[in-house]
């Protein structure tokens, strides 16, 4: 059930925040966008996507609203809030630190 097992939780949050940085999107859109920006490395399944979206909305990083989709269906759109934009900065910085640290650790060997 948990597709998140191969994806660090922090990574998923970072990817969702990044995916929503440009425009608001619905669930499948976010999932596709993440596939696209990571060259299909990450395939986020609804079992991890939706709990993450609801959790992040509760944390105040995302807000959601109901709108019309491209095929005229009622769809729920998520967008970044101010706090979400800040969080994106924070997470990006963290990620940079971690990836640099891991990279240097690997080089040291």
């Amino acid at each position, binding site marked *: 059930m948990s597709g998140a097992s191969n994806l660090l939780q922090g990574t998923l949050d970072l990817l969702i925040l990044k995916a929503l940085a440009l425009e608001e999107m619905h669930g499948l859109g976010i999932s596709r966008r993440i596939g696209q920006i990571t060259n299909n490395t990450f395939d986020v*399944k*609804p079992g991890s996507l939706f709990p993450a979206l609801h959790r992040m909305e*509760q944390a105040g990083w995302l807000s959601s609203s109901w709108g019309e989709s491209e095929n005229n*269906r009622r769809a729920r759109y998520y967008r970044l809030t101010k706090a979400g934009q800040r969080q994106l900065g924070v997470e990006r910085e963290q990620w940079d630190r971690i990836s640099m640290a891991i990279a240097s650790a690997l080089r040291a060997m």
Partner: protein
Amino acid sequence: MISLKSLWRNLFRGAEFERNLSDELAFYADLLTQEKISRGMSATDARREALVEIGGIEQVKEEVRDVRAGSSWDGVFKDVRQSVRSLWHSRGWTALAIGTLGIGLGATILIFSIFYGILLQPMPFRNPGRLVQLWEARAAKGWDQAGFSRPNFWDVRARSTAFESMGAMVGSNMNLTGSGNPEHLSAAVVSAQFFHVLGVTPILGRDFGPLQDQPGHNHDVVLLSSRFWQSRFAGSRKVLGTKLHLDNHAYTVIGVLPNGEPWLNAGDVFVPMVYDPKEDDRGNFEATVIGRLAPGVTISAARAELQSIAQGLSKTYREDRGMGVRVAQSEIWRADASLRRALWVLLGAVSLLLLIACVNIANLLLAKASARSRELCLRQALGASRHRIIRLVLSESLLLGFLGAALGLMITEWGLAAIRFAGLSGIPNAANIHVNGWVLGFALAVTVLSGTISGLMPAIQFSSGNIAAALRESDRTQTASRTQNRGRTVLVAVEVALSMILLIGASLLMRSFGKLLSVNRGFATANRVIATVNIPLNYDDARAATITGTLLERVRALPGVHAAGTVNSTPIVGWDPGMGFGAEDSAQTVDGKVPWASWRFISTGYLHSMGIPLLKGRQFVDSDFDRQKVRRVIVSQSIVNLLWPGKDPIGRHIILWKGQGNDAAEVIGVAGNTRDHGLAQDPTRIVYIPFVGQTNSPAQLIVDGTLSPAQVASSLRSILASIDPQIPVSGVETMGELVRSTLGSKRLDAALLSTFALIALLLSMTGIYGVLSYSVARRTAEIGIRVALGADRIAILSLIVREGMQPILIGIAIGLAGSLAITRLMAGLLFEVKPFDIASYATVTVLIVTTALIACWLPARRALRVDPAAALREA
């Protein structure tokens, strides 16, 4: 941060949320299907693949629900709703469970409220940690807890600097006259600062002035206890400034004290103790002395200072020779050691009882939950997480806990009302024991605790279950799975062990109590009535003696009276005056100390009226009451055994008040031993001295005859009205009542503990019965097969009984070991019964085995009635 808005939304707009969640996921699935169709898939295949990719819409929903803010609250509401539904569904089961928990919780809360009221409730004094009580001691004579003599109190108070203030109180009696029938009041004579020491201010009027105990000040003032103020003056504020005629002397009411224990109800009225420089009787240890330590002074520093003051007094005054001072913190005012121990034992006992109740609930839940195991596993298969299942089972047991607690609080209120109604003398301060905030807090804590204990084991067992196995296991499976059986077996063994400990404890107390009731007291109680006749302190000896003599003469002339006599202190419960003594012709000591005996001033006929046998010599006659050069006394057999073993004591001389007055007296008779200190004490050494007079006040009159207390009271009133209308009669009761009142705390212990133990036995037997009948019901098919294959009744019976008795025997073994360890703590509560009392252990074991056999037999009988054909068809 969880926003309030989303919490609100989640809690109260759950339906809308669910609809939106469904819409969102449906949209996702539709879009995914569309994508696949546009890539050339058939509509059906696309739909199926999309759903597989999503991995189960319901599971996704469940995971989203789990992250929702307030989801735990929402879940709890849902769980509670579900629990209520499930409890309502099986009402009989629920009533049994609530009853069980209610009894367990009720007993626990009741005992805790008593425990709190006596040992924990703050005393009504300012900073009680700084309060101490002082006693005089004479290490050489072997006593260290006598009251102070008044001159010693004044001296110690004047010389000590370790105390901010010090006060003394002497119990007394006064007659209230001037309005209707004379009334006997308990009075306390207190030094000026007594209430100031306690930090208590009157609720009405004022306290005594700081110098009110000094000569030259106005001493005709009186403070009232709140209880007396309420009963006599109906709480009227107009009482201030009125005059009370006490012992024919007018006192002005200056204030009313607050209610509370101890001290504040020590008398109906409080009058000032007055310092008299000429007073020099240092042998009368009558005053209760308290003190408040000065700031920064430790109790050991105070002790050292008092010791040096005592040494100084010891050099100056003959009667203070060898004087020491004992100091103890005010904590001891709450309860004596035996009451403390009794309260702890009771608290321990109810904890065991509650534990048994919890184990029973766990058992009931297990039985119920195993019937529900398919439902629970289905929930798990549908995506309910493990902790959701635990929560579901726990919420049910907690709900039971709260319903049980409601019943328990009712039981507590009834119990407290019953205790107040019965006015049990074993519980001091009973009027101030209530269900208050602390008790409610305690109740909440034990409720949650017991709900958790009850639910935890079933919850863990069911959440760890193998889903597939449970789903395969059909309702008609023949035997319960091994783990379920083992769990319940352990619970039954625990229950039996706990009940065993309780039963043995109770049986020890009951046997001890029985011994106490049947102990040879040395005096009779049947047909005896006792009354207090309070001769005013300001009558001289001759006048008092005349009154007593006339009174006795008239009482003896009443029809139905066999004997009557007076004594200066109430048997068993009264003040017990003592003295050193010795033989004139031999120097007898006990452990190198002067032996100690009680003395009693008695009238003629006292020994008769009390049924105390005269073993040798003669009774007192009227001439013995005239002033003699050498007093004539009757001594108890125990004194003869000590001073003149094997010799004839009649005519020998005994030294009374050895080390003080050194009065010689001639022994004219020997009386049987009595237990006059209390039934649990060794027989008292007593010297009976012929004397009636003012010192005899208040006189305890004992009447042996066929009259009831009410008849005695009215006869005495009419006789006294013609002798001296100022003298009241009070405290009329049978000797039987008097003796029973001294057994209050022991009776309470024995009664409560036996009740708890019997409830525990009943609970554990229903537990055994429940487990076995459930297992028999599940094994109907198996038993049917056995019968069909030719097993006879005996084989079936022994199969069931063996299964039932196995945990019981294990429980008995554990219970015996536990009892051996635990009952040793009860040694101090037992009278003539050893903690390891074989009779108690044997009785309890037989009782448990017998009741357990019955509990096994009932389900076994049902197993025997199984019709093999029907059973097999069912399987």
